[in-house]
């Protein structure tokens, strides 16, 4: 076969180009909308610009060492963000470990197994979890979740897994575990909603083919439906990760806010967002403030990369449709 000559496809003409300029009202209308639309890119530029400018003293002072040193001493003016970066990633991964089976379970149940008339109500209830404000999650975490973890969850965990470094030390309440669990509950609605849309986008013929060959319902789901939507499901999970990384209030209230790197999930930790929330108003020196801005810049860059990755994966499955917009 000969290769087809590849020519650049011309961009589609704006639909009413011929009419442009005929009517003054049209020009004003288009101009106004354009100005409003352009505020978004300008806003992003301003945001990145302000962050970089404000973080610049810290970037110049510490260079890349900021990323892997763990001394955070405002008095001596030495700052390293390693504990926060570690805590952010650790708490988010812990959240994923809990949230992924839960939300995939919800998505699979709602698309494949649930009776038709309960699907919509259950989907609505799970999505309501996304409507609860972060600070309310924090409040619930402090007064309900932590006592529950202390009384019901941690003792048996220690009996079974106490010998591993992950469950070492005394459990006081505010900890990586508490932060991770609350994050998990918070990201379930996002992952579940997007996964559900991805599974709904899997053609029915996939299911029928598997069932026709004698597969059970579960085998059809697990061998034909889930692999088909794999990229989208991974996208959904990464989208949840993006949410978890930037989540502030609930984590600040639960994770313990200590500049430490430790393997044990029972110990307090810190996240980047929590550090900004906690210390921004206490930052007395310019360098301190600048270090916090650098943390903010890092957080921004990480979430942008993670979100872009998620979008790419989801678009692969559901091309053209804005999957996930309803999860908001």
């Amino acid at each position, binding site marked *: 076969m000969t290769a087809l000559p590849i020519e650049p496809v011309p961009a589609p003409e704006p639909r009413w180009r011929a009419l442009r300029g005929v009517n003054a009202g*049209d020009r004003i209308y288009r101009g106004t909308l354009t100005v409003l*639309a352009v505020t978004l*890119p300008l806003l992003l530029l301003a945001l990145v610009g302000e962050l970089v400018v404000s973080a610049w003293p810290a970037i110049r002072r510490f260079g890349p060492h900021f990323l892997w040193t763990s001394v955070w001493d405002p008095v001596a003016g030495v700052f390293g963000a390693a504990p926060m970066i570690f805590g952010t990633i650790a708490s988010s991964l812990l959240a994923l470990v809990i949230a992924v089976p839960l939300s995939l379970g919800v998505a699979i149940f709602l698309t494949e197994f649930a009776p038709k008339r309960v699907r919509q109500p259950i989907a*609505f209830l799970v999505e309501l979890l996304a409507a609860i404000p*972060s600070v*309310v999650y924090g409040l619930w975490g402090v007064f309900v979740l932590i006592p529950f973890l202390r009384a019901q969850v941690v003792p048996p965990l220690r009996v079974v897994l106490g010998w591993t470094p992950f469950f070492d030390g005394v459990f006081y309440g505010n900890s990586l575990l508490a932060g991770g669990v609350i994050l998990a509950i918070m990201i379930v609605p996002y992952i579940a909603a997007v996964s559900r849309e991805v599974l709904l986008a899997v053609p029915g013929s996939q299911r029928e083919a598997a069932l026709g060959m004698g597969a059970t319902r579960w085998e059809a789901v697990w061998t034909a439906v889930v692999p088909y939507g794999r990229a989208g499901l991974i996208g959904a999970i990464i989208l949840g990760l993006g949410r978890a990384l930037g989540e*502030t209030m609930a984590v600040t209230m639960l994770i313990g806010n200590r500049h430490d790197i430790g393997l044990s999930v029972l110990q307090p930790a810190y996240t980047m967002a929590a550090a900004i929330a906690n210390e921004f108003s206490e930052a007395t020196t310019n360098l301190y403030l600048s270090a916090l801005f650098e943390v903010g810049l890092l957080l921004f860059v990480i979430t942008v990369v993670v979100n872009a990755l998620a979008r790419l994966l989801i678009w692969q499955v559901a091309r053209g449709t804005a999957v996930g917009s309803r999860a908001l």
Partner: protein
Amino acid sequence: MNARRVRRRVVNGMMTGLVGVLSFLAVLALVLILGNLVVKGASSLDWNFFVKNPVPAGESGGGVANAIVGTGIIVGLACLIGLPVGIGAGLYLAEFGSGRLGWIVRFVADVLNGTPSIVVGIFAWTWLVKPMGHFSALAGSVALAILMVPMLARTTEEMVRLVPHSLREAALALGYPRWRTSLRIVARTALAGIVTSSLVGVARIAGETAPLLFTALGNLNFTTHILEPMQALSLQIYTYATGPFDEWPRLAWAAAIVLMGLVLLLAVAARSAIRQGPPHGAAR
């Protein structure tokens, strides 16, 4: 052979049960959170709670009138700033968004959508609080508007795109100018959808705390002055939940009921708006 068939059946049954249980757990989390709110907060909800300001720590009684009014003002102002920009940008994307600028705006909106709210908070601080020299409700509103605009732009675009092309063509064929077609016919048809997106957007920002920490800051007194620090329900909950006084958790739960009620009201309103749907047989 038979044993294998039994095994497959059992696995099927177990996994069906498992995904059902997982769904139950997710719903249970919601029920537990809302249930705890009601159980721990309802007893503190009385008339005084809505009309009185906070009293000094240690004294009993007092309410959150300042925070309720504050949330109303901060969120209302954020809507004044955010709704026109967001809806306008969405209309642009739907009507003129096929070119390169449309692509850029769409991409930027998605990037901004994923930006952590605390980052937007410190941005608003450098932009407004630092130059002005003091914290203000206005700065908080701007921060919330920044969170709202990208999401609103994308959802408005989606809603406007649902309007059938034939409707637009009919209007143009009748000699309507393009801008009137867009506003009177297309946007009008998509109105229910746009209202829904706006309500969802408002619901999302109404409960935000992180962007207000360094902008609106919070205020123990009643104020309606937008250039002064102002209290918001979310900030009040944060203060009460993390403070050292015995009385405070009770007030935090009660304030959380009020905030949660507001957010749920908006969410339900958004849902009922979408159920009416865009007229003229547009999708959805």
